[in-house]
């Protein structure tokens, strides 16, 4: 396994755990209504989100230092943003449809701006790793 491929795999594994942890805590603690009212809950989510982002950054930087990247890896890395872009667009479409359908009458609560932004960052990080892994898979198939 190429060092960049390994890095992407670690990134994907962490990203999935990170996203699930935030979703589980969010649901268990009471969801949107509690999130709006309870500052302590917001701090917990902030710590999970920002802490995860910092950890993800440190993990990627540490692995980058340890791994050699050559022209084939750079080619794959250069194509990964396509997956990232589509994943972000797809998540935006989902958010837009779900929010407009759920809050059409009363208006979308401003708290969702925060949740949409947070989810976009996480989706973007995870999708980059997926893009890299797809790149290696496709190159392995010699497409």
């Amino acid at each position, binding site marked *: 396994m*190429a060092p960049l*491929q390994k890095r992407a795999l670690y990134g994907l594994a962490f990203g999935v755990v990170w996203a699930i942890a935030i979703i589980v805590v969010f649901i268990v603690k009471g969801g949107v209504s509690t999130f709006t009212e309870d500052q302590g809950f917001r701090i917990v989510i902030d710590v999970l989100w920002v802490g995860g982002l910092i950890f993800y950054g440190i993990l990627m930087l540490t692995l980058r230092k340890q791994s050699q990247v*050559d*022209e*084939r*890896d750079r080619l794959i890395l250069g194509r990964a943003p396509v997956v990232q872009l589509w994943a972000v667009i797809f998540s935006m479409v989902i958010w837009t449809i779900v929010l407009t359908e759920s809050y059409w009458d009363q208006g979308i609560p401003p708290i969702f701006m925060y949740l949409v932004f947070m989810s976009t960052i996480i989706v973007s990080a995870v999708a980059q790793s997926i893009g890299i892994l797809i790149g290696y898979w496709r*190159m*392995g198939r*010699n497409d």
Partner: protein
Amino acid sequence: MTKVKNRIRRLRFDHDEMTQQELANRAGCTRQTIIALEQGKYVPSIELAFRIAKAFGATLEEVFQYEEST
């Protein structure tokens, strides 16, 4: 499969069973790229192709061949 063929596996054998890692170190790429090249799953840049040829002390044509489709 790609139309650019190579003799990397054969040349490694001819150079005292040079390991893929050793060739990768000499050519400045990863071992996984050498594996992909040997399997015909990747066509290198002209620069890497020259570096691989140099690692064997061979010309570009001795390492890489272009097969014209009929």
